[in-house]
């Protein structure tokens, strides 16, 4: 009854360049590869004495975190500063917003202060979409996590880490283990892996932690970890939040660990050169054994380093897309 347009295309300019980064879903192989390649150049940069580039000098980046997070907030702050941007951090707890200003009003106020980019983390799925589509379409919106919908920068830093370790995506077998139901990271990872060419994507979880019809995203479902992890190249563990025990989703942490925790025994079922990843912070003894988290096949620390580079990449690309899609009154010289 209504014209079907792909809602994820609001992320792109008319020329197909990134101007918002909201979800990995709906982005082409070319764009995802460009993000990885651009991030690569920033990884090299981070290793040198000079860590700053002037790309975003004079631009204001506002970190708008409606959900508390020290780790993600600080990596975004660092990324923005390395691009020479002016950074404003706003940690707004949901309760104060619901008492006073609506999300829309908060953003309109910030917009009036001439911000160039919003990095938003919010507990409601669709928050980033809402902002990009209805509130401030001319300000680059970077999604730092919205409800259970997407965490695209995490997914891309995971992809970069996989690419560094394994090279090609197509022949890989990847397992995502844990609380898929509540995971925005898992959803973003699945879309990215598929677009990058991985055909064997497995989700491993008990039924209570699997979203309805998750297979429709193009994954194979396993409730038995031993079966699911067999011969995989990459094991991506997800965080299990303590609250899940209280909502009748799991009986106990120890039962979860016994069945779905990544131990050296279970890892032995994967390929001998399989790598282990986790978005952090890790719950040792709940999702993953210390021995595995600290072993040489664990890429957890690489993920952290790549996090800054990937965020620098998407911030530069989105700012570039926004600038180019604005009507330009004068020509540029060489």
């Amino acid at each position, binding site marked *: 009854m209504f014209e079907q347009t792909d809602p994820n295309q609001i992320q792109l300019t008319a020329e197909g*360049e990134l101007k918002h980064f909201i979800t990995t879903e709906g982005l082409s192989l070319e764009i995802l590869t*460009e993000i990885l*390649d*651009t991030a690569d*150049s920033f990884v*090299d*940069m981070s290793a*040198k*004495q*000079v860590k*700053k*580039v*002037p*790309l975003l000098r004079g631009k204001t980046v506002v970190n708008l975190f409606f959900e508390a997070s020290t780790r993600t907030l600080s990596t975004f702050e660092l990324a923005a500063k390395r691009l020479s941007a002016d950074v404003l951090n706003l940690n707004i707890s949901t309760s104060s917003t619901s008492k006073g200003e609506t999300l829309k009003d908060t953003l309109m106020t910030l917009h009036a202060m001439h911000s160039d980019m919003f990095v938003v983390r919010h507990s409601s799925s669709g928050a980033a979409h809402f902002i990009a589509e209805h509130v401030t379409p001319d300000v680059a919106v970077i999604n730092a996590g919205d409800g259970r919908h997407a965490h695209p920068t995490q997914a891309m830093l995971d992809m970069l880490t996989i690419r560094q370790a394994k090279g090609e995506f197509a022949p890989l077998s990847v397992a995502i283990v844990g609380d898929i139901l509540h995971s925005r990271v898992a959803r973003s990872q699945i879309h990215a892996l598929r677009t990058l060419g991985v055909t064997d994507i497995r989700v491993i979880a008990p039924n209570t932690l699997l979203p309805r019809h998750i297979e429709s995203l193009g994954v194979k479902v396993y409730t038995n970890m031993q079966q699911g992890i067999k011969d995989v190249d990459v094991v991506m563990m997800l965080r299990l939040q303590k609250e899940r025990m209280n909502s009748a989703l799991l009986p106990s942490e120890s039962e979860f660990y016994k069945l779905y925790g990544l131990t050296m025994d279970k890892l032995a079922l994967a390929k001998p050169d399989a790598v282990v990843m986790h978005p952090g912070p890790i719950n040792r003894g709940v999702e993953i054994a210390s021995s595995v988290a600290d072993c040489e096949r664990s890429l957890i620390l690489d993920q952290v380093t790549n996090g800054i580079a990937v965020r620098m990449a998407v911030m*530069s*690309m989105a*700012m*570039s*897309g926004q*600038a*180019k899609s604005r009507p*330009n009154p004068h020509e*540029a*010289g*060489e």
Partner: protein
Amino acid sequence: MTSNALNADALLDKMKQGLQALLSQGHKPDPLMIGIHTGGAWLAEQLHKDLQITSPLGALDISFHRDDFDQSGLNPKVQPSNLPCSTEGRHILLVDDVIMSGRTIRAAMNELFDYGRPASVTLITLLDLQQRELPIQADIIGGTLAISADQTVKLTGPAPLALEIRNRSEN
């Protein structure tokens, strides 16, 4: 020179002679050669070898220091800059293939100065297209060329090195 294919070797020789003469004056002891990606890096490699510069060769990618980010956005094909030693107090020999408006050199110098304070920077370019928009000049050039607004010059390489005049639309 009006033919579409310019004599890159002849220009390179002239550059080499100029640089040799400068170095023998003795005011730039233990110079550090840095080429600007991509054409300048190829030329620098050649010069570095032919003139037997002892310090390791460096390369600079100026993509992140360009002044036209708002108009042209980000170059997706960035290559890493590689400066093998500190630039602090050194005499830099900066090499590029073409100098036109001067903005590339400004970007390169901005980036260089982020790394440290050099003792001096000497600019060596193969070709000067004499269409400055900024007050920046090369110290040593291979040659000059006048081209029209719809033309551009491209150095191909790394071997053999060759210069071509192209119409802008061909890019």
